């Protein structure tokens, strides 16, 4: 899963916690630890008590991601996520009344500037430069009123760690961990951020995101390959564009567009909050009610319509870049909770996870055609997704050789049932991974939020276990025969640029 984050340094384990489902023992014990509470405005709050160190982690998510964007405003979910750190009319300012006058001017000049930028080569370059200068001047004036990154400042003083956020295809998540005596501070700060965010310093942050795109995609071969691949694999469904957005859209999206996006999706009824650690729900719930209860319920998010049409034949993409070659390949498939998705999870493990997996043993260890091959589900889980392979060949072996060798393994799965021992190994490992994810407050919080937010019920993590445990060799064979076919396949190659440094 692709995630764009506010800060690169922090670790975000959302994908990991989700990819490895639950286990019998701790799953049951987790169920006993969870207290669920729904506010009148629709906000679902999930508590899990762990009274070890006097700390707690919180994670809350809105069911909105890049999949909810459309051409022209790609990257807006992520852009708004950055803006949610800029404060409120009370937090982040010395004098909001005076600052507001400047912000209104900034909004106006920024809009004109963005409209001109969106014309591309046909834009009036002189006008662009003039508006840019005007904007810079206004931004300088605004600084006199700004309390720089006050959300960071407040949490740093309180001993907070890991303040960050991440946007994916399916959801936007916000995280912070605090010492246990700072629970009310958390309630105040986060309810304010959800309700009263001010898009302060918007056009400076837009510039940060331009650099983020260059740093995390344009200069990173694997990410660029993923972008080319998804663009080909989905022709209609919005899983086809990158979370961070296309450069042209990031360069010209306006403050008003970001605000409108927030208005549609940042409602308590579209949000799930998990609080895990040294917290007692009976004491915490009144504070949650006091602060988060004031947020007005919003409209339901807009209807999602687009369904990816059935793929009618193989698609191939090839592009040149100043890097050594690699490939990505994928097949359309149903998402969780379906038997096909469970079979895909188990098959991915059998093929490429660990030194005893089939493809590792054959392609990496014995034939040494490749240095890494990884199978999984991508790019999101809210809608039908893809069973994907990413592979890195070993020189002088070619992408074609590696592709063929992977497909030989796919054919083998169609022809012969996988062994019982392989199935049992995968189930043992998925169980153990789940237990390991229970060893951190953050790991537990992310599991709870993802199931509740994306599938409507946190207890569905138990369903994941049931589905995985019920997968048979016949299911895997069926999945391979019906899904891993040539006509359902998209393959993307990154090849080394002929003349490159």
């Amino acid at each position, binding site marked *: 899963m692709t995630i764009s984050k506010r800060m690169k340094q922090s670790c975000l384990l959302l994908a990991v916690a989700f990819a490895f489902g639950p286990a019998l023992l701790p799953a049951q014990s987790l169920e006993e630890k969870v207290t669920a509470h729904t506010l009148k405005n629709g906000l679902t709050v999930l508590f899990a008590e762990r009274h070890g160190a006097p700390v707690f982690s919180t994670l809350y998510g809105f069911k909105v991601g890049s999949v909810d964007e459309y051409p022209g405003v790609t990257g807006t979910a992520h852009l708004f996520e950055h803006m949610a750190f800029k404060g409120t009319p009370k937090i982040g300012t010395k004098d909001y009344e005076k600052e507001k006058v400047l912000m209104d001017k900034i909004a106006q000049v920024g809009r004109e500037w963005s409209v001109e930028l969106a014309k591309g080569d046909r834009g009036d370059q002189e006008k662009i430069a003039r508006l840019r200068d005007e904007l810079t001047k206004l931004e300088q004036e605004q600084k006199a009123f700004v309390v720089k990154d006050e959300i960071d400042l407040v949490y740093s003083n309180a001993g907070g760690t890991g303040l960050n956020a991440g946007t994916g295809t399916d959801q936007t998540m916000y995280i912070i961990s605090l010492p246990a005596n700072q629970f*009310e501070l958390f309630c105040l700060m986060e309810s304010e951020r959800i309700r009263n965010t001010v898009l302060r310093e918007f056009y400076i942050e837009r510039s940060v995101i331009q650099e983020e795109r260059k740093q995390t995609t344009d200069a990173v071969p694997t990410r660029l390959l993923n972008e080319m691949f998804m663009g080909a694999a989905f022709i209609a469904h919005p899983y086809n564009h990158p979370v961070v957005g296309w450069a042209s859209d990031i360069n010209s999206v306006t403050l008003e567009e970001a605000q409108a996006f927030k208005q549609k999706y940042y409602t308590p009824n579209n949000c799930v909050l998990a609080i895990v650690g040294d917290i007692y729900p009976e004491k915490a719930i009144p504070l949650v009610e006091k602060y988060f209860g004031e947020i007005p319920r919003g409209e339901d998010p807009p209807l999602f319509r687009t369904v990816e049409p059935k793929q009618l034949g193989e698609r191939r993409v090839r592009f040149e870049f100043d890097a050594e070659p690699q490939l990505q390949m994928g097949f359309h498939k149903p998402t969780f909770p379906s038997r096909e998705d469970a079979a895909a999870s188990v098959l991915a493990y059998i093929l490429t996870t660990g030194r005893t997996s089939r493809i590792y043993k054959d392609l990496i260890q014995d034939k040494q055609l490749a240095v890494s091959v990884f199978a999984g589900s991508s790019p999101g889980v809210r809608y039908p997704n893809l069973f994907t392979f990413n592979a890195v060949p070993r020189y002088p072996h070619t992408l074609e050789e590696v592709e063929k060798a992977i497909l030989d393994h796919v054919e083998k799965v169609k022809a012969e049932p996988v062994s019982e021992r392989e199935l049992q190994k995968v189930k043992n490992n998925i*169980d153990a991974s789940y237990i390991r994810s229970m060893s951190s407050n953050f790991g537990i919080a992310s599991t709870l939020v993802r199931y509740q937010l994306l599938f409507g019920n946190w207890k569905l993590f138990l369903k994941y276990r049931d589905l995985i445990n019920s997968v048979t060799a016949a299911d895997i064979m069926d999945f391979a025969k019906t899904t891993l076919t040539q006509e359902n396949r998209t393959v993307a190659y990154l090849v080394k640029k002929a003349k490159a440094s």
Partner: protein
Amino acid sequence: MKRAKVQIYAAFAVALLVLVLPVLGQRHPRELSSPPPLSFKMPKPVMFTLGNGIRVAYLQDTELPLVWVLGYFRGGSLYEPTAKAGLAQLTATVLRTGGTKTRPGDRINEELEFIAATVEAMGGSEFMTTIGSALKKDFAKLMEVYADLVMNPAFPQDKLELARNQSLEGMRRRWDQPFQVSNMLFQERLYGADSPYGRRAKPATLQAIGREDLAAFHKRFFSPTNLMLGVAGDVPVDEVKAVLNRVFKGWAKSKVDLPEPAPLTERADGTIYYAYKDTPQANMYLGHLGVRRNGPDQYKLDVLNNIFGSGGFTARLMKELRSNRGLTYGVYGGINAGRDRGAFMVGSQLKAAQFTEALGLIKGIIQDLQTNLVTDEEIETAKNSIINSFVFNFEQKNQIMAQVMTLKLQGFADNYFDTYIDNIRRVTKQDVLEAAKKYMDPAKMIVTVVGDEKKFDKPLSSLGKVKEIDLKALIEAERGPQK
């Protein structure tokens, strides 16, 4: 088409904006009274020594049916010959994948993966690190495999070739990402290409390594008296002792010689190293040598670093370069401690069209820290942040165990954690100023930048002495003739 869409949508958005602002019921955290203080006692690992000299740190954790093992052997890439750079990492990899005299590596893979247990080994600069984890019911099995691997590795030729081939492919690909390239160039120029601290494994040095080198490297450092082993998890101490005594039985002590590498000398002389690569940003590192760890000014440096560049968005570098100017997605800086000198460094991927402007801002921040006292608010925030978040060092039991082991091995006092908060509390603005003067020297800093100078706001030559690095030639020389 696009323009029309933008305008219509923008007009709609303005209408929404008017409806929703201003909002009532806004709050500021200053309304809250300060919370009651936290009381917390860090659980301390039990330390004991086995008959053959292995020092063990043990911490019980009954929350989940799991167990973790961590073993540090002194020894690492600091002790490998320059002509065989990469030996420490290859030894570690093949120690694991090659198996033992009685347990072939592939069989270990099957046995461990079926029970969802892991054992891995890594070669660092001064420690060979081994880790393991399993469900608690498999603790004895885990330790049998672990002990056999560290005592009796077989280092078979085929697994050496596999590990070497994998590393060689990694070396082909390490030029693909410009920020990583900038870092390689920086480390090499900071410490010296032949220094144990700065040399880099290359295809030729990997090719020079044979099975006998791995066996000799293992023999030299993998001795019971040179191992500190940690166990954390849901296994009682008596069982841990019994299992460890059994699996390590008969492991003979040997004397391990750990000569101090030649001391580092400052080589930084203000040179700017530029390497062309067709990439959108300016990928930059800058700095000079840092400090020896566990030194007299460590607490002052912790506070200075927090204010300068390690404190996230409250640090000056991030505040100015990202939040105020939008010149980068991230910037880190600090005076880091190392076994000998560590590095004073700043790293960032910067907007190419404002690269020299950004560089000027970074130098300005450094000079200001050396000239003026930091503000009251800055030092308060830095100290509060360090002190109040201290408890997060002890969130998980295996993490506590690892921290305690690392501190012991690196020569920190036993009461380091107990006195840490008070030591931070004592740091003053004057201390921060003095530390900045003592440990930062902008005139000496070298800069490595990978990118396309044509995209920069000013030529690099306007900033000082520039040496150009031909990446293409460097890569070709490193790879040698290709098939």
